[in-house]
């Protein structure tokens, strides 16, 4: 006898019995893609990761994530040419995220609050000599010390910092910031020996019983150009001028200064001359603004400060109070061609900023070590042809920036560490790139880029005060929150919301999500509505 109401023979059931996952021909998968900022960073910073912490106001976590790769964020937040921002996907939406200024905020915040690096957990008993206390050497020393090795840095100069101190003017990098970030690395137990020029690397290695050596002496020899000059003509080189700014004896440049060259160093000298009281500070460059190797924002700042540029010109002769320049035209190959037209410029001094060479003399007679066009040859592991001697920074082939140096130092340290342990270091496999077409930009609210305060132009022409100011906390956090988090889930709940089949499981804060493949029909809505491209569709195996 059925004890059920009329016409009801079956018990009610839940649709959960119906596993609609069997309909699926493609399946969604969570993935991490490589954000373009991370991809572009020569120091290998995980930019998206530290911005993620900064967005939440967890500045110390952000700083610790950042300093995994780069021990000097306050310096880099000032002097880096931020290829990350050039690559930033947000530029295709409105403007790139102000990564560099946010990095500076974190660096300054760390100095203000006195955050320190965690002491090395273990000691390897191995000794490493780092030659050169510039960004490359300091970066390597930092990473090696954290890995438990005993590190000694030797530098020929009276102060640590290398080109950060002797090449970059004070108005771009205040020295208290530089000193504090160097000291924080030394606090890890790194020994710094100044005024100790290494003249023979093998001897230094043997005498100090060092297990490995890292060469990072930089490129400090100014390149010369042959310019017929009268005996009274005052010719200087840019490296010497910038160095003398640090050592106390201010260079005598006169009222009319001509700087010859088109790189960032030329701009640094021209802007320094202006601040020293030069009435005219003129850059002479043989090609055009578009062809200039200096960064455009630095040129723009220089022009604002009253620096003049003579484009398409070469110096053919230098006299006591004037120089002769020849006008050039750009040939079809982009190279400057002389025209035979000449012009005279008044000049009390001429500063040559034509690039720098590496002093390779300390490497004489090192077996196996090879050089090529004035730089040291290294393998992908940053090791020279001589076992246990590694090199990086300006003295090897590559772009010569502080950021590249930091990256070289880190890369070399990984390899030195592995080599000391009898292993080889493998670069972790990279994720696929999170290009703009992987994003769903609809979801990002409109937010114009924050601008850092700039010193007024009068003070920029007469003092060495820092030109670009920093963000306050509010602005830094706002800027961090402009990050699109390309290719990396930031837990916006979109996939969890837009699934018509309730087949996305939310795992809770910090835990992201999982798919319930029992019910996921493979419609792909989560993939197309994920703002940051952290889900992909893959064909279901048949």
């Amino acid at each position, binding site marked *: 006898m059925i004890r059920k109401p009329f016409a009801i023979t*079956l*018990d*009610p*059931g*839940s*649709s*959960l*019995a*119906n*596993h*609609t996952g069997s*309909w699926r021909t493609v399946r969604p998968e969570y993935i991490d893609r490589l954000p373009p900022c991370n991809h572009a960073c020569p120091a290998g910073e995980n930019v998206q990761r530290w911005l993620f912490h900064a*967005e*939440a106001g967890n500045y110390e976590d952000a700083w610790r994530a950042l300093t995994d790769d780069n021990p000097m964020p306050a310096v880099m937040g000032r002097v880096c040419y931020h290829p990350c921002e050039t690559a930033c996907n947000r530029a295709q939406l409105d403007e790139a995220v102000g990564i560099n200024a946010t990095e500076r905020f974190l660096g300054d915040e760390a100095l203000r609050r006195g955050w320190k690096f965690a002491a090395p957990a273990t000691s390897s008993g191995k000794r490493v000599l780092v030659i050169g206390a510039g960004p490359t050497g300091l970066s390597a020393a930092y990473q090696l010390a954290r890995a438990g090795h005993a590190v000694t840095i030797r530098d020929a100069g009276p102060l640590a910092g290398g080109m950060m101190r002797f090449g970059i003017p004070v108005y771009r990098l205040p020295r208290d910031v530089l000193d504090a970030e160097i000291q924080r690395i030394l606090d890890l137990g790194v020994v710094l020996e100044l005024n100790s020029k290494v003249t023979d690397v093998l001897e230094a290695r043997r005498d100090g019983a060092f297990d490995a050596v890292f060469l990072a002496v930089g490129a400090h020899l100014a390149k010369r150009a042959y310019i017929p000059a009268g005996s009274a003509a005052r010719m200087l080189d840019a490296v010497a001028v910038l160095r003398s700014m640090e050592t106390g004896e201010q260079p005598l440049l006169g009222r009319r200064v001509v700087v010859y060259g088109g790189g960032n160093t030329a701009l640094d000298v021209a802007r320094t001359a202006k601040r020293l009281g030069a009435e005219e500070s003129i850059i002479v460059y043989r090609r055009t603004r578009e062809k200039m190797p200096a960064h455009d924002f630095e040129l723009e700042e220089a022009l604002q400060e009253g620096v003049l540029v003579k484009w398409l010109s070469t110096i053919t002769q230098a006299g006591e109070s004037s120089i002769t320049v020849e006008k050039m035209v750009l040939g079809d190959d982009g190279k400057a061609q002389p025209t035979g037209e000449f012009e005279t410029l008044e000049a009390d001094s001429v500063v040559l900023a034509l690039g720098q060479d590496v002093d390779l003399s300390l490497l004489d007679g090192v077996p196996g070590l090879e050089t090529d066009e004035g730089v040291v040859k290294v393998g992908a592991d940053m090791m020279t042809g001589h076992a246990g001697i590694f090199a990086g920074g300006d003295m090897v082939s590559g772009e010569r920036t502080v950021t590249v140096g930091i990256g070289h130092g880190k890369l070399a340290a990984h390899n030195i560490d592995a080599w000391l342990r009898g292993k080889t270091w493998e670069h972790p496999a990279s994720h696929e790139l999170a290009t703009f077409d992987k994003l769903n930009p*609809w*979801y*990002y*609210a409109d*937010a114009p880029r*924050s601008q850092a*305060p700039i010193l007024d132009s009068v003070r920029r022409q007469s003092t060495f005060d820092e030109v670009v100011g920093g963000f*306050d906390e*509010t*602005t830094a*956090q*706002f800027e961090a*929150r*402009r*990050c*699109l*988090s390309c290719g990396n889930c*930031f*837990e*916006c*709940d*979109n996939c*969890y*919301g*837009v*699934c*018509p*089949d*309730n*087949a996305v499981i*939310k795992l*809770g*804060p910090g835990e992201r999500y999982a798919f*319930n493949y*029992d*019910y996921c*029909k*493979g*419609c*792909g*809505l989560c*993939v*197309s*509505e994920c*703002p940051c491209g952290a889900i992909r569709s893959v064909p279901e195996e048949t």
Partner: protein
Amino acid sequence: MSEQPVRFYQTGTFTVGNRLLPEDERSVQANMRRTNSLNSGHRACQGCGEALGARYAIDAAMEATNRQLIAVNATGCLEVFSTPYPESSWQIPWIHSLFGNAAAVATGVAAAMRVKGRSDVRVVAQGGDGGTTDIGFGCLSGMFERNDDVLYICYDNEAYMNTGVQRSSATPPAARTATTMPLGGSAGNRFGQGKNMPVLAMAHDIPYVATATVADLHDLEAKVKRAMEFRGARYIHILVPCPLGWGHGSAETVRMARLAKETGLFPVFEAEHGVVTRVSKIRRKLPVEEYLKPQQRFAHLFHDPPRRDVLDLLQQMADRNILRYGLADETEAAA
């Protein structure tokens, strides 16, 4: 430097949730303990807009009523795919009767609750556009006219999809359905026919009328919540794209709803007592082609040569909506 709001976060306004917002400021759908009124295992097509819209709306209604809710369902896709006897995907008290009488049944449920003194239990009636604008229109108009205490939600996918994509009075002009096949010179649904259901609801002067889409969850949830603050007859009309009937990819459902709103073809607004009180402005204005082209039901407009004349008429419809409801962003209008 001027102060900037820190609260802004990447996607704060538009995404379902946001790890940095307080829980009470996130959407109902972001909550790990949402009701999931319409649970997994239902038989809706891949990427179904109606299944999505129904869970959005009913979960929000459950939240707004402290989970004291009874839903009455008209016949249609939503009923068929969710409740093939003896299974159901509904995790709430839910009743189905006929195609045309959901509003009348809901009236009865509301009356029963009144008699029992259960003023805390609220009633929702729901149906597709067929059950609302065609077959159930008489019952619904009566419910409005009597101002019965029911929220009626129409999930509008613009045709009878469950039975094979036949035209309804909510099918837009030029859309091809199984019953508006290309015949003679003009293909697709005719211009100048059909019903504008939200406007008809407003004409009854009921307390609350709103339109929404599955592309703007925050707006949709706010409207359900607002509707539950009124007693009497209320009507919400939700545009729910149908991958099957519209002929777009299953992953495009939300995008189609977004484009319907951004082109101006589907005005999103709310009205109280017959007066429009708020409209959702168009954020990034787009020509109607952007919305029409990805849909197979409009493919006949884009053959060689394209039907510029028909596209112009559809653009005029969008422009009229923009003018009529003031959908254009002021800053854009000024530019």
